[in-house]
């Protein structure tokens, strides 16, 4: 009954939302009138978006929404988080239930076009991997012929697994669950030989186990999963604000601006790039429809990209993920933001 009612409500919501007058160029104004931003996040994925016992959210995706709220609405606390399942997320964004989808979502062609989304950039370069029990003795994904895999439904994961096994002529069985936690629980109970999701997700789930050392993350990455925040089509102004907030955080790392020193840099720095970004020179805010301090507030709220990463995924977190490709372009990674000018 419950599920049925939910489908029905979802259908109604789609109809109702789609029947309202077009929301073009209205997202920022609506958020201001409302007093807070609506940010769609995951149902709980350590490192990206995860609620604690008191219902406070933390993670990379969460911090990014706080940065957007600080830039656009003037306060990092002016944001409400809505946990969405893999299945619900796009409908929620399309129908206006959330202003921004910051939910470890892979940027793909069909999502960018047919689903009516705009991806504001890449916040984390991920790739799909496999986790197995050590006692199986498997060392490589190529040894998985005939294996049963558990995965989250309604994700690119399902398609990647199909592509990977099919292209190698290997057999497999895939059991898909609506919540990734249930998929993982089934793997832990022994229903599947393999648990598969984005590699960051594998690390995040593994730290929750009682016996993390019994499980091995295979070296192969079978797909490109550029994860990024998305907004809906039809509001270019809002798209630009989200996009440039992300660029501002990446540029801040490159320029050595941190949450702690941003205020000081704003007044003291002689570097024109720093001065433009922090609003002491030029008027970047105006072209975005914001005030001059937008980037300063975003950086003060969340820190620069490097701080964001270390706190949520890197050395400062239980996940201990290395920067690798997610380092700046100048430090051997592929993170590269267009200039602010």
């Amino acid at each position: 009954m419950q599920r049925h009612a939910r489908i029905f409500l979802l259908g109604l919501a789609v109809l109702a939302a789609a029947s309202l007058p077009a929301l073009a160029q209205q997202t920022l104004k609506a958020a201001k009138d409302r007093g807070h931003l609506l940010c769609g996040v995951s149902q709980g994925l350590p490192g990206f978006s995860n609620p604690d016992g008191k219902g406070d959210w933390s993670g990379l995706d969460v911090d990014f929404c706080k940065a957007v709220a600080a830039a656009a609405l003037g306060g990092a606390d002016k944001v409400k988080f809505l946990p969405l399942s893999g299945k619900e997320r796009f409908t929620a964004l399309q129908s206006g239930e959330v202003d921004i989808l910051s939910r470890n979502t892979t940027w793909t062609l069909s999502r960018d076009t047919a689903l009516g989304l705009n991806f504001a950039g890449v916040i984390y370069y991920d790739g799909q991997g496999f986790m197995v029990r050590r006692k199986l003795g498997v060392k490589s994904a190529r040894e998985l012929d005939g294996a049963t895999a558990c995965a989250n439904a309604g994700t690119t994961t399902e398609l990647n697994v199909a592509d990977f096994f099919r292209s190698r002529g290997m057999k497999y069985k895939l059991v898909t669950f609506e919540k990734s936690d249930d998929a993982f629980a089934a793997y832990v109970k022994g229903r599947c030989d393999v648990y598969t999701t984005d590699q960051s997700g594998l690390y995040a789930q593994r730290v929750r186990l009682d016996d993390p050392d019994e499980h091995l993350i295979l070296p192969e990455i079978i797909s490109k999963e550029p994860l990024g925040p998305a907004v809906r089509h039809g509001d270019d102004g809002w798209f630009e604000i989200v996009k440039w907030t992300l660029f501002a955080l990446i540029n801040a790392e490159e320029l050595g601006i941190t949450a702690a020193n941003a205020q000081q840099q704003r007044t003291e720095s002689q570097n024109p790039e720093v001065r433009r970004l922090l609003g002491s020179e030029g008027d970047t805010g105006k072209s975005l429809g914001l005030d001059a301090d937008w980037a300063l507030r975003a950086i003060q709220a969340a820190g620069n990209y490097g701080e964001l990463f270390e706190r949520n995924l890197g050395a400062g977190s239980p996940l201990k993920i290395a920067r690798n490709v997610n380092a700046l372009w100048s430090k051997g990674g592929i993170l590269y933001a267009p200039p602010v000018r």
Partner: protein
Amino acid sequence: MARPAARRVGLARIDRFRAVAVQGLVLAGVIALAAWFVGNTLDNLAQRGIASGFGFLGSTAGFSIIVHLIDYSELSSYGRAFVVGLLNTLLVSAAGIVLASLLGLLVGVARLSDNWLVARLATVYVETFRNLPLLLQIFFWYFAVLSAMPQPRQSHSLFGLIFLNNRGLYVPKPLVTADLWLVAAALAGGIILAACAWRWRRRRGGTARWEGAAALALAFGPAAAVAALAGPVTGWAVPALRGFSFEGGMVLIPEFVGLVLGLSFYTGAYIAENVRSGILAVDKGQREAAQALGLSRGRTLRHVILPQAMRVIVPPLTSHYLGLTKNSSLAAAIGYPDLVSVFAGTVLNQTGQAVEVIAITMAVYLAISLAIAGAMNLYNRRVVRIGESR
């Protein structure tokens, strides 16, 4: 006298006109509202560049489905994935309905038993399963089933042919050259034929033992003949442990078992109460009369009480069957690929066409529910007739 009568006729005509006019206006309003909804939705979808229409049903799906009653691969279309999901829903609902009905009948009768222990146990069952959320029960059964079963390499085995482990129940599969559908159709036809013949004979009052044998032959004969003529069984695919798990043979996955158990234990509790109320509704004199005639308890129940109780049992039973079918959509939670999980889940997500997918899904559930309700209403008509004729 003539004038008031004429006036009354005139008034009636005005009343009727007014009624028709009001209904017409409401109908026009509803249609206009619906048209506005549809038009506006299409406008908005187009404006935001979201794809619409039903063309996606022909595109390649690209994902796999763990159980499929018809041929399906990653290269099949979304339309075929829809049919796979629909058949899985029908399968799990049918299995749930049969099991819930048996369970309900058994427990319903047991609750009225003179045996204190049996009656109390039945009460405990009803009060427990009726009062816990269904989703919780499904999770319980699923993880209970998973935990109770060994890993594939430690499978329970029966004669080396049937294997049970946490990947499912594996049984050998016959390898036939003939189309299995043909055999299945012959079997179904045979059973229907036999049932009709049996009823016809019973109405004439004769069901001798040899006639039972004849009916069995009639039921299975055609299927055997078709199988023998079109191509005999050339061998059996026996499941065998290869690599990670068993291959070959047919498999019943734990998701299916967990879901069917959850649905039937939950709905069974409601049906049990339903059966009990039906039995209690039969006049006490009926039982006493049957016993006075020397009928045994079992025969009293079967031939006197239940046929009359059915009149009270069937109408609410229809609702329980509908509920069970709709509740089967909880499958998505434990990874059983039913219609909601496959179509309103994965397909919706890959295509993003929420409006179309949800509309189709709703229409399908409506159609299934109406079909069940229709069938039960037909059955109810028969039951009522039997009850009256007694």
